């Protein structure tokens, strides 16, 4: 499968934070969700992809080309949506479009007008009057109007009400019907990903925990609930994170088939949600 985005051993060091040799790939025509708790390194990864941060080492290829050597060409084929509003609040949407459109050779005014109509965005409205949801839609309209092949969104759904969130996710799902378009978006609202993501990449404390298809995640991850007697040295390797409570334990396993084979009685085994995976991974404590 041809990849639209390939990251190999990406490393970025700050004071007090290191993104440690992250590698993953996103094929054409799919949606990838980048998950992780706050401060995990999601935004650092996305900013490195956009070359807004200078990586210390590693390789980022977009459309098969290095993102630094072919920066302008790559950016002209990417639609980037920030987590916080980055438009001039004193200007109207039409004025914002006037500023942004000339940077894109492939700008399609017809698509822009259609998106504005479909998304119910008034051209004369000032940016400051937009709700967060409308702001996201406008950013998306701009991205679609220059035929962006890769849409990168940093926390697009955070702060949106459930109706707007669902609407945005529907728009994103509809977008990838064109099999040459892909979407990478970071979020900590994991229910969004369970709904639309084809691939899930989980980063925790700057480290890549996994980058798998959604099916692989749900086939392999599970929550084991049972007595404290489960915490043996032999079982330790099976648990990626453990929460102990008064009556027993709840543990995340990344090897669900093996756990099912091993624990037959007195144990409840459930499929893990992405939220479970994030929560228990944060707890750690696999080796007991």
């Amino acid at each position, binding site marked *: 499968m041809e990849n639209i985005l390939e990251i190999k051993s990406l490393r970025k060091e700050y004071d007090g934070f290191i993104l440690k040799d992250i590698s993953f790939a996103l094929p054409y025509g799919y949606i990838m969700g980048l998950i992780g708790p706050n401060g995990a390194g999601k935004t650092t990864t996305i900013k490195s992809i956009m070359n807004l941060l*200078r990586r210390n080492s590693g390789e980022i290829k977009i459309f098969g080309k290095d993102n630094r050597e072919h920066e302008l060409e790559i*950016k*002209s084929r990417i639609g980037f949506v920030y987590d916080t509003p980055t438009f*001039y609040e004193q*200007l109207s949407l039409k004025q914002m479009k*006037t*500023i942004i459109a000339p940077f894109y050779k492939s700008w399609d005014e017809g698509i822009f007008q259609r998106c504005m109509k479909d998304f119910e965005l008034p051209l004369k409205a000032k940016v400051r009057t937009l709700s967060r949801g409308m702001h996201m839609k406008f950013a998306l309209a701009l991205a679609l109007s220059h035929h962006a092949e890769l849409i990168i969104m940093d926390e697009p759904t955070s702060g949106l009400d459930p109706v707007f969130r669902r609407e945005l996710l529907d728009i994103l799902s509809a977008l990838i019907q064109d099999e040459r378009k892909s979407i990478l978006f970071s979020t900590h609202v994991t229910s969004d990903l369970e709904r639309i993501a084809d691939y899930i990449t989980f980063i925790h404390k700057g480290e890549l925990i996994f980058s798998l298809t959604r099916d692989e995640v749900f086939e392999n991850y599970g929550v084991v609930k049972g007595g404290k007697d489960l915490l043996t040295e032999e079982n330790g390797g099976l648990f990626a994170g453990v929460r102990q409570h008064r009556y027993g334990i709840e543990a995340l396993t990344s090897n669900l088939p093996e756990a099912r084979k091993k624990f037959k009685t007195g144990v409840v085994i459930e499929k893990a949600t992405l939220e479970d995976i994030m929560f228990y991974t944060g707890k750690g404590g696999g080796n007991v």
Partner: protein
Amino acid sequence: MFSLILKDFMLLRVRMWFQVGFWVFFMVNVSGSGIPFLIISLIMVSIPIGADEKNKTESLLVSLPVKRSTIVIARYLYILVVIALVMAVTYFSSRVLHILSPAQFERVVPFDWLLAPQLFVMFLMSLALPIIFRYGSHLEAGIRVIAVSISVIIGAVILLIVIWDSMGIDIFSIKLVYTSLGMGVVMLISMGISLLIYKRREF
């Protein structure tokens, strides 16, 4: 490049009435001095810089398919365009006022009276822009340092102008050509530094 300069002028339109009012007031009341037009120019150049900071739009600009060097050069060009615009509008409106009411407006604002404050604007922005391109305009400490420096420089210059004016020395006509050339060089150096800084900046 043109889009970026146009963008700055679009942002300027937001406070246009304030600027026009300020301008008219000084044209009518202090038409013999170039100092108010220094303030007008400073307001005009600082509005887009403030807007970028307020709206965090620098991140937007660098995510567009545009070279960082183009963003830097566009900002310097915008300043030069503003300076030229202020000088031209002031000169021609002063001429019109003189024609309409020669008794009240005895003379047209001399060219050197117009140019000197604008050279000063060039100088100030040459100092400020590399810092702004490095830290953004929000860096409180940096801005305080700049604000203090600017206040001191403006105060000193106004004082000197008043003193020299009272002594009948026309300081502007003497070395205006050299000063202009000097300011041009200062601005070029400033732009070079800004280009280096902005290329390495992270967002």
